[in-house]
C-alpha cells in the first residue's frame, strides 16, 4: 500500500509525488468548481472521489500517471500534472490541472516541463495534449511548452484539439528548451511580477 514505485520529481520550486489520500480535499474543491469545466466538471462529491480513485488506479494499470504537485518548502498542493491515457485516448497525453487559487505562478509550466522530461528520459518518443478549444489558459500553456496544434492527429471524440509536443530531440539543449527554462526561472524569482493575464 505504498507509493514507493511512483518516482518523485524535484524541480526548482516543486516536488511531484504520487497522489495520496490526504491530498484529496484540494482535488475535490477544484473539481467541484468552475475551474474543472474543461475536464468534465463540475463534479458532485461522489464523481470527484471516483475520479481521484481513477487518477491513482491509472498508475497501476498503465505504469504511469498523474503526480500531485507540492510546494517544495511548505508541501502545499498546487495541482496535478503527468501522463494520462485511459481507454479511448489515441496517444499518450501530458495533462495538467492547477487549483484555481494557485494559477498565475507558472507552476503548471514548471511541473509539465519536468514530467515531460521524465517521460522522455524513460522511453517516450513524443506526447500530445487533448485540449478543449475554449480552454485558452491550457492552449497557452501548451504553446509555451512548444506544442503545436496537429490538425491531422486523431482526436478523442472530435470535440477536442490535439496539441503535439516537441520531440525529445527538439528539447535537447535547444533554444526552445532554454526558453522554457528561462520562463520558469522568471516565475521562480521572487522579484518577478508578471503583468497582464495570469498564466498557469
Amino acid at each position, binding site marked *: *500500500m505504498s507509493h514507493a514505485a511512483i518516482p518523485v520529481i524535484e524541480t526548482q520550486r516543486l516536488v511531484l509525488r504520487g497522489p495520496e489520500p490526504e491530498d484529496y480535499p484540494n482535488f475535490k474543491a477544484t473539481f467541484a468548481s468552475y475551474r474543472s469545466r474543461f475536464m468534465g466538471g463540475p463534479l458532485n462529491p461522489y464523481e470527484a472521489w471516483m475520479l481521484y*480513485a*481513477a487518477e491513482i*488506479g*491509472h*498508475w497501476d494499470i498503465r505504469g504511469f500517471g498523474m503526480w500531485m504537485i507540492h510546494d517544495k518548502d511548505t508541501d502545499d498542493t498546487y495541482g496535478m500534472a503527468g501522463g494520462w491515457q*485511459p481507454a*479511448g485516448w489515441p496517444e499518450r497525453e501530458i495533462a495538467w490541472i492547477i487549483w484555481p487559487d494557485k494559477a498565475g505562478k507558472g507552476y503548471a509550466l514548471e511541473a509539465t516541463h519536468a514530467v515531460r522530461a521524465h517521460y522522455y528520459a524513460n522511453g517516450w518518443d513524443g506526447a500530445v495534449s487533448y485540449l478543449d478549444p475554449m480552454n485558452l489558459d491550457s492552449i497557452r500553456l501548451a504553446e509555451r511548452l512548444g506544442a503545436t496544434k496537429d490538425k491531422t492527429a486523431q482526436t478523442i471524440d472530435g470535440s477536442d484539439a490535439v496539441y503535439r509536443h516537441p520531440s525529445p530531440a527538439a528539447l535537447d539543449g535547444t533554444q526552445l528548451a532554454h526558453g522554457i527554462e528561462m520562463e520558469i526561472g522568471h516565475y521562480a524569482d521572487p522579484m518577478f511580477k508578471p503583468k497582464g493575464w495570469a498564466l498557469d
Partner: protein
Amino acid sequence: MSVTFSAPKLETERLILRAPDLSDFDALADFYTSPRAAFVGGPQSRELSWRALAQEAGHWVLRAFGRWTLIEKDTQAPVGIVGLWHPEGFPERELGWDLFNGATGKGYATEAARAARDYAYNTLGWTTLTSLIAVENHNSARVAERLGATYDSDFTHERYGPMQLWRHLGPEALT
C-alpha cells in the same frame, strides 16, 4: 502491473478473489457497456469502463480495502467483481457485487460476497455492512436475501438516484 497497492488473495470453493488488473478489462467492459449495467450507472462507453477499472484499483489505495476480481477456478476467466466499497457519497461501507456477462445463475455473487463479508468481519474487525441496491434490481436484491441481509432504509444517491439500503447480518449472527 501493481505499483501502488496490494490486495490479499481470498479463495472459495469455486473462485479465487484477487486484485483487479488490466487483464480484467475486456470482461469488465463487456459488462459495463451492456444493458445489464443499467443498475450500476450504465450502460456506458468502453472509455468510462476503463475508468471504472482504474477506480477499483484507486479505491484500494485510498481506503486500504476494495473489491476483488473473481476468477473462476475451472476456466481461469474473470467472472465478476465483488468486495468492500466506500466511495465518498455512499452512506456507509458496503458489500458490493457485479457479475460479468454469462456468469449469472451459478451463485458466484453469493459465494464471493460471503468471503468478502468474512474478511470484513474477521480480518478488518468491522461490525456491520450494508449494500445499496437500485429499487428495480431484483436479481441483486435476491443475492442480498440469500446472504441474510434485510431492507434497512431508502437512500437517494446523487448519481444513481433512488436506492434501497440493505443491512447484512452482523458478525455475532454469523458465528
